[in-house]
């Protein structure tokens, strides 16, 4: 499926690079180019403080993209990210208003709400076989409706708990932001799940050929269900962290994460058709997107330009890696 032009280029590279996915290599190459370009604009671009700050910003997207990757590996998509993020943030903050027990349960409750959204998605996709893009759009709308009703249409007044703020902005290890640590832990868990567990094997198997996975006696429906639940949960957790970062939740805080999450996964070489992709690629994609955003803002590129550049970059990368095989 990979482009012959890329293969030719790849064959001239050292063997350790050649063995890895050309998309991942390209993504990392783009990161280096972006860093160089950025350093032309500003000297501080290559300073450790700035890079660490970028990594911290990237970790919110990283957590969300992790769930998205799992779903895309199955050959599905989760378009309920925006309001899973917002619901996680709002519900965590809301729980905090209910006394000490609420404060204690704020984070788990926020995540739980995201998992519930994911479970509805999972039931729709796995058991009712509704196309994932449709059912996830619908649950997104329902989640939005619930949140609007809950907040009364205003920005929610509840603020984030200390724990949420600590997770998003604190330093458990001096010099390493907690958000980065959390992303590292979640990332490590995902790598482990994808490479070492029966669940991970089943995910790749279903993404490649659901028919063959089913005939191999895998309970494909349960696997799909779990993947969507995890995706919802991680989106909500991303929302919890964002709320901690900003000290409170906001209505449309999730809107800015759908496209970047998909873009990060796809730019990292995960096939949009499912079954192929590594977490390393998603990490590269997340960093790439974050750096791109950062450079565009350093260049004072307006939101409009950013949107256009996102769209063009995604289409271009997909045309390079993500094309369906030619029919006949």
């Amino acid at each position, binding site marked *: 499926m990979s482009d012959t032009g890329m293969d030719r280029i790849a064959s001239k590279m050292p063997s350790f690079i050649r063995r890895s996915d050309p998309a991942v290599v390209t993504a990392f190459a783009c990161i280096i180019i972006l860093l160089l370009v950025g350093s032309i604009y500003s000297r501080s671009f290559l300073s450790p403080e700035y890079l660490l700050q970028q990594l911290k910003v990237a970790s919110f997207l990283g957590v969300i993209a992790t769930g998205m990757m799992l779903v895309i590996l199955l050959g599905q998509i989760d378009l309920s990210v925006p309001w899973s993020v917002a619901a996680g943030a709002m519900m965590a903050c809301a729980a905090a208003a209910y006394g000490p027990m609420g404060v204690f349960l704020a984070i788990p409750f926020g995540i739980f709400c995201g998992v519930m959204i994911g479970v509805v998605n999972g039931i729709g996709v796995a058991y009712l076989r509704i196309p994932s893009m449709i059912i996830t759009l619908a649950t997104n709308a329902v989640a939005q409706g619930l949140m609007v009703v809950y907040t009364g249409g205003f920005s929610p007044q509840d603020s984030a708990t200390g724990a949420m703020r600590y997770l998003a902005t604190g330093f458990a290890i001096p010099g390493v932001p907690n958000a980065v640590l959390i992303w590292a832990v979640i990332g490590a868990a995902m790598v482990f799940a994808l490479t070492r*567990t*029966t669940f991970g*094997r089943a995910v790749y198997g279903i993404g*490649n*050929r659901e*028919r063959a996975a089913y005939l191999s*006696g*895998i309970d494909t429906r349960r696997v799909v269900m779990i993947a969507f639940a995890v995706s919802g949960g991680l989106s909500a957790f991303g929302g919890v962290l964002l709320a901690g970062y900003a000290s409170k939740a906001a209505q449309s805080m999730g809107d800015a994460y759908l496209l970047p999450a998909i873009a990060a996964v796809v730019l990292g070489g995960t096939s949009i058709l499912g*079954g192929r992709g590594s977490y390393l690629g998603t990490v590269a994609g997340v960093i790439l997107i974050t750096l791109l955003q950062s450079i565009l803002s350093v260049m004072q590129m307006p939101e409009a330009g950013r949107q256009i550049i996102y769209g063009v970059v995604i289409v271009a990368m997909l045309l390079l890696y993500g094309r369906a095989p030619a029919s006949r």
Partner: protein
Amino acid sequence: MDGAVPLFRMEGVSKRYGGVRALEKAELSVMPGRIHAILGENGAGKSTLIKIMAGVVAPDEGTMTMQGRAVTFSSPAAANDAGIVCIFQELSLIPELSVADNIIISNPPTRFGMIDRRAQRRLAEAALARAGASDIHPSALVKDLPLSRRQMVEIAKALARKPRILILDEATSALTAADVAKVFAVLKRLREEGLALLYISHRMHEIAELADECTVFRNGRNVATYAAGTKTDNEVVELMIGREYSHIFPPKTPLPSSDRPAVLECRNLGWTDRLNDISFSVRAGEVVGLGGLDGQGQRELLLACFGVLRGLTGQMLVDGKPVALGSPADAKADKVGMALIPEDRKTEGLMLPMTVRENLSFAALDRLSRGGIVDRNAEQAMIDDMIKLLAIKTAGLDIPVGALSGGNQQKVVIAKWLMRQPRIILLNDPTRGIDVGTKQEIYQLLRKLADAGAAIVFYSTDYDELVGCCDRVLVLYDGAVKRELVGPEITEHALIASALNIQDDNAGMKQGAHA
């Protein structure tokens, strides 16, 4: 043949798929105003021949001429333009469109750039009437019609294209007896109108009724062309037999005594109109073959046993206890211990882009893991065993399984199930499209597994394999078991004759042997 000029002629046409030759220097002349029947057993090259004529595949070599002029077809549309229209077994109708839409789809009448619905309706009604199917309403949606009506629409659609050569590939297989009579009348009329008809069917009595001349294919070559009625059924069967084999089959182990309990037993199994009251049992150590022509319900039977089909009637027993299998996951559970080597290794057996290792352990992961975490040492050990047992040739365990040769891919499919040590093994045509060497290894393996106590159900489209490998063979016809051949009764002649559902006079004396 009476000196007339052939309408269509093919000379020295060959086609290979990978290493397998499907057609070898085939010759065929088609005369106007004649019905020409094509005969041959499964895999003799008939379908390749048709596909080449219909422009679906391109031949590797050889020439085709129409009325003396050389032709090549780059697509089905090109063949249509030349006047060759084919009615395929797999229906080419668009389910969501109406009958009339479908009939005129390739060449709709237009007015001011829009499809003229009235003209369309007229043309469709005319075509349906010509096909003898006026009972079908042109406005009905194709997806709402039963299979037999769709087949009639398919015939009407072909007629609406004004063919000069009409190819019917098993076109009557889904029809009711009344429809068959109507279609025959239509075909005879078309013959009188000067069309050339190519008729592919496994039903000998149909060919006897219709055909003017017959050509028998074997091993991708045309071995005989004769005027209809000049050969007996048995002579025809003899012509179809004799594929070139160099197979050596392992000796069969004497059958285990019949009082040994059945591992798998089906009682009165039925499913839609595809399976019809099927009862059989398989004992440990036994290889039971499924024979018959392609598409008589063998695949469905295997899928039914494996828990894939919904709405089964009848009963299934494992070790004498009734079981209800709702999915392959149920079927592979330890208390059942079933495995299915599916029909198409590329889409059902393997995940081609995934590695050999991942594919091999995929079905057995639950046994190779603890708490959901794969025990990589146990996995490695078992994979090593399997690679050795089946002599799988691969450049490594971490290359995509799609990079392996067809034979080795098939070995991976089998190995992935043997990793579970199944007690019941169902195989759906496992040797299709693989090299002779690997076939031999699979025969040896099957016998070895049976001797080790497995109960094996083996469907093959290759009759020689059934003869060489099976202790018993059930011959299916129209979704029902037509005949059971045991031990020495299993001959290629008997298999073909019972597959064609004709009286087999050679084996007549043994008829009473089956219970």
